[in-house]
Every structure is written in structure tokens, then in C-alpha cells.
């Protein structure tokens, strides 16, 4: 099977969808000719392949980029617009939260906004807090948006195809570090459904619910714990909204223990939602308190030892899991 990074998998999805559907166009800062151009990135080579009509390099103008997507989508196009890094989303937030998410509802169900906002995110590159801040909980808290955060290149390709074909606004958050790690990706056309979690590793003793880059942390921790006799089941959410409650609850009811792992900061993070879900609907099956493993409530620090401290890792996950046995 072909080995692609997350970015390359998204790139392949974009190319395949653009080839099949002229309504699909891509716009963003430096996506055609860019300062961050790299063969491992999502928009690499698209300008050469599809030309400037369909690959629009924009000014540095996040609100207009997001507005472009809202307006173009209601007219029947299928924009994929890139917000370079997650913290820059805040400048586009009015268009995404007040308009993309709400205008269909305000139309009484008459209008559609089939747009994708592709956002790079995550700590680990020493880029500091204004480039690395994970804000998925903000968008997951906005009804009207779908939110996906793939943890593998294969899911990224399938989710991007689903996102482009979806009739609703989809926020597609792609971790930067994953752009540099190859993994197997099926060739050709397939979709990964939005709103469906995936058991990345079956287990019997404890459920770890996670997404995006933290999937790798969970897999490595699980393999260590396996040797110590603790069987971990890993639920990769893939989609935060809609949330696949059934898969989470089935797993939690089976194992009786839940640890939620995410890179975003702890307080108000989406992990609280998963914990609440278990408390509301699987309380009687829980054998131990629910644990959250997340970044501390601080901006992402720059210096390497401090940034490493910020990002949850195998040690912190293993410690949390052991604390409930």
C-alpha cells in the first residue's frame, strides 16, 4: 500500500475530488506559491495541476477567506479554504461561527453551505503559542459545524473526500506533526464517514478515547501496557461533531474504565464532553473515575523542554491509566 503523510493523503483527496468535480476549488494563504511549500503538505503542487482559476492564493485575510467560502458555497460551489494555523481561525471566527454555522438554520433549511475549512494545528514544532494552539473545542461547541480531526493518513484522505461531498460546513483540523509521518493509505476513491469513530485497537480493561496526533501516543502507551497485562481499547473519535456516542459508550460499558486523551488544554477541552457522556450514560458500568490527560492550562510554550512538557505523552497516559486500577 502507498505510504503517505497526512498532508499527502489530503493532497490526494483534493486532487481526486477536483478532477471529478469542477465546483471544488481551493483558496488560502500561500497554497499555490507559498513560504511553507513542501511535498508533504496538503496543497503542494495543486496550482501546477489545476491552475490559478481553481487554486486561489489569497492575501493574508482570514475573514475574507472564510467569507469567500460562505458566499461561494451558498451559490453551489464546493470551496476548500485553508486557515494556515489554528490560532488564526479566531480572525475568521465570525464568518465560521456566526455565518457558516448558522445561515442554513436562519434560512429555515433552504440554503446549503457545503464548504471545508482546512486548518493546520498542533504543538511540537517550536512555533510558539500563536501557531500551535488547538481550538477544536471552540468549533465543536458551535452547532451547525461538523468537526473532524484525523489521526492517520488513511482516515485523512477518506475524511477529506467526505468533507468535500458533505452538504454542510466541515472544519477539518490537521495536525502539523502528522504531516511529516508517513502511513499506509489505500489507492483510489474511498470515503471515511464523518461522525463515525474507529476502534484503532481492541482491548478489554480500559477505554482510551482520543483523536488526531494523540492517537500515536495512545497506541504506543497501549503496547507498553499490554506487556504489563493491561489491555487497552483505543477509540479514535476522528469526528468531534457529530459525536459517535454509540461507539464510545459501547467501549466504555465493555471495559468499565475511561481515560480521555487530547493535546488541547484541559479546562473546557472536548475531553470534558466525553467524560460527561460516560457519566450520563454509562455511570453504572464504570468501575473507576474517568480521567482526562490533556495539556496544562497554559499557552503553548516555545522552549523545547517546556513544549515537550506541554504535550501529553505516553508517560502521562500510562500514569493516568494505572491510577484507576
Amino acid at each position: 500500500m502507498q505510504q503517505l503523510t497526512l498532508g499527502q493523503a489530503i493532497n490526494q483527496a483534493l486532487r481526486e475530488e477536483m478532477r471529478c468535480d469542477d465546483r471544488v476549488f481551493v483558496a488560502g494563504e500561500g497554497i499555490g506559491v507559498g513560504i511553507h511549500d513542501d511535498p508533504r503538505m496538503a496543497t503542494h503542487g495543486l496550482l501546477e495541476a489545476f491552475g490559478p482559476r481553481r487554486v486561489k492564493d489569497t492575501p493574508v485575510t482570514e475573514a475574507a477567506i472564510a467569507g469567500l467560502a460562505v458566499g461561494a458555497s451558498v451559490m453551489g460551489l464546493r470551496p476548500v479554504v485553508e486557515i494556515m494555523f489554528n490560532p488564526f481561525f479566531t480572525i475568521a471566527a465570525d464568518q465560521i461561527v456566526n455565518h457558516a454555522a448558522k445561515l442554513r438554520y436562519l434560512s429555515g433549511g433552504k440554503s446549503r453551505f457545503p464548504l471545508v475549512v482546512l486548518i493546520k494545528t498542533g504543538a511540537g514544532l517550536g512555533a510558539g503559542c500563536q501557531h500551535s494552539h488547538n481550538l477544536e473545542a471552540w468549533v465543536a461547541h458551535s452547532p451547525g459545524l461538523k468537526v473532524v480531526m484525523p489521526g492517520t493518513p488513511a482516515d485523512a484522505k477518506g475524511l477529506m473526500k467526505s468533507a468535500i461531498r458533505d452538504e454542510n460546513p466541515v472544519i477539518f483540523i490537521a495536525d502539523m506533526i502528522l504531516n511529516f509521518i508517513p502511513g499506509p493509505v489505500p489507492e483510489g476513491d474511498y470515503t471515511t464517514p464523518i461522525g463515525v469513530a474507529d476502534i484503532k485497537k481492541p482491548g478489554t480493561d480500559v477505554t482510551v478515547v482520543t483523536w488526531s496526533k494523540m492517537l500515536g501516543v495512545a497506541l504506543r502507551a497501549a503496547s507498553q501496557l499490554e506487556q504489563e497485562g493491561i489491555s487497552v481499547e483505543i477509540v479514535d473519535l476522528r469526528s468531534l461533531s457529530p459525536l459517535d456516542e454509540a461507539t464510545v459508550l459501547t467501549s466504555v460499558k465493555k471495559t468499565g474504565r475511561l481515560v480521555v486523551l487530547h493535546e488541547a488544554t484541559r479546562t473546557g477541552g472536548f475531553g470534558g464532553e466525553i467524560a460527561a457522556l460516560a457519566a450520563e450514560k454509562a455511570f453504572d458500568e464504570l468501575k473507576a473515575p474517568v480521567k482526562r490527560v490533556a495539556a496544562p492550562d497554559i499557552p503553548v510554550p516555545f522552549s523545547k523542554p517546556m513544549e515537550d512538557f506541554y504535550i501529553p505523552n505516553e508517560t502521562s497516559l500510562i500514569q493516568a491509566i494505572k491510577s484507576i486500577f
Partner: protein
Amino acid sequence: MEHQEQKNLLRMLLLIRRFEERLVELSQDPKNFGGMMIVCTGQEAIAAGTGAALLPEDVIITNHRSHGHLLAKGAAPDLIMAEIFGRRTGYNKGKSGTLHIAVPEVNALCTTTVVGGGIPIAVGTAFAAQYTGQNYVTVCFFGDGASDEGSFHEALNMASLWSLPVIFICENNVYAGAQRLEEHAKVKNIADRASAYAMRSQIVDGNDALAVYDAVKKAREDCLSGTGPVLIECKTYRWGGHGTSDHQLYQPRDEIAAWKERCPIEKLKASLLQAGTLTEDSYQCLESEVGQIVEQAVRFAQTSPWPEPAEALEDVFA
């Protein structure tokens, strides 16, 4: 403009005026609907003149002061009224109310009350026209206050850079909330801001419906010929407060009185009477006609069913 079209224009001015006068009356009784009404009384010529210059395929994006824009684009008074009454028969099944009405049937795709929020969306709808090669324009209405928002500047820059077919119509009604223009911006004219984006601009008497019509018609032709966007500043005046709960303590009485002397309806009426297009009798007929339309709309709204509470859960996703 043909005589009949001029009479239709006057009829639209009267319809907007009467529709909103009735809204204000109805809003006094909470049994009808609650909340502050935001009306365009005194500014009707901008909506009516623009509406007359546009074709059905043209898109409008509007703001909190939208009733006139929607009516002039061809939205049905009874379905707007039902929406304002919160009834299921309203354009948006009661989910929008007075502030957010969308009428995709006439390409009125977005009424946003985030000040300046619609301007980037107009860039998107205009981009779609350019991308698909379709001949329609987008008109985006906003007030003088919105031109201070970052979204205005980002949107005008992108629209100009890409030569998009969009007409930005600023209704400068002297007040942004309680602030006069000189209290919120250093420029004398909002139109001056177009030069920062190498964009054409024009200042129009916003109380002269025929002048607005001419300006928008010309701008439409220019947009479709590929010369890029235009900013039209319509100078007008807000007779009332920002909304009906605004006591207008900051608006000088003599200023209001002076602008009422420049009533857009009286102006067009006088012009049509002078030209012989209109008689006092035919004017009375127009007034009576719009009065009946508005009363019919109120009856339709009042007798329409409420939505079931749980209908609130519908229409989030397609």
C-alpha cells in the same frame, strides 16, 4: 426609466414605508411580537432604487435594516410578516425573525446582524459568478458604521484584487448607533475608503430613488463588463433611532426635521407629478393599494400557525 416603472418605484417606496410603520405599531403589543424593530424609515429610496435596478438572478446580502431591501428584491410581504410574527409560514419557519430573514427564492441569501459580517460573504457570492461565468451581480448593503470593521477592508481588498462583480452599497444615514460619522471615522465620505483598494466609488443622494436606480444600474453594467467592484455611498438620514427602543437623545430635533423635509417619497412623488406621470388620484390609489397589501400580510401572519417547539431542532444540518 419608463413611466410605469417610475410608478412602481414609488409604489415600492410606499410599501416599505407602510410595512415598517405597521411593524412599529404592532410591536407595541407584545402579543404580536416582542423586541426592538429596526426600520429604514427615511432611507427607503436606497432599497427601492436598488431593487428596481437589479434582475431576479442578482444576489443581495443585507444587514439589520433589511425589510426594505427584501421587499424591493421581490420578497413577499405576507411571508416576511409571518416570519416577524415567528410563525411557521414565515420565510424561515420562525427561526430568523425580523433580524435574519433569508429569502433564497429571490436570491436574498443572507441578512446578517453582525455589523460588517455580510461583506466578505458578498465577495464569495461574487466569486461564484466569476468562477462559473454567470452574469449576475451581488449587491451588499451595509451602514456607515460597518465600514470601520475589519471585514469591510478585507472584503473590499479581495473584491478589488480579483475584479469581482459586486456592488457595495453603503447607506450612510449619519449615525452608527449613537455616533455621528465624525465621531467614528476621520474620512468625510465612506466612498473615500474605496481609493485604498483602487476601487471605483460614487456618492449618491440616497433620498433620490431615481438617482440610486441610475447609479446601481450603471454599476451593474460595469460589474458585468468585468471592470470590477464599485462602492456606492448613499447619503441619507435615519429618521428614527437605531431601533424603536432608542430615544434619540443624541439626534438634534431640527436636524431630524430638516431631513424629513427631504422625504424620499415626497421627492419622487413631486417629480412624477411634475412630469405628469402621476396624479393626486393615482397617488391615493397607490397608497390604498399598499395599505391593503400590508393589512393582508398582517392578517396572514396573525392567523398562521405557530411552530411546534421541537421544530427548533430541525434545519441545523442539510
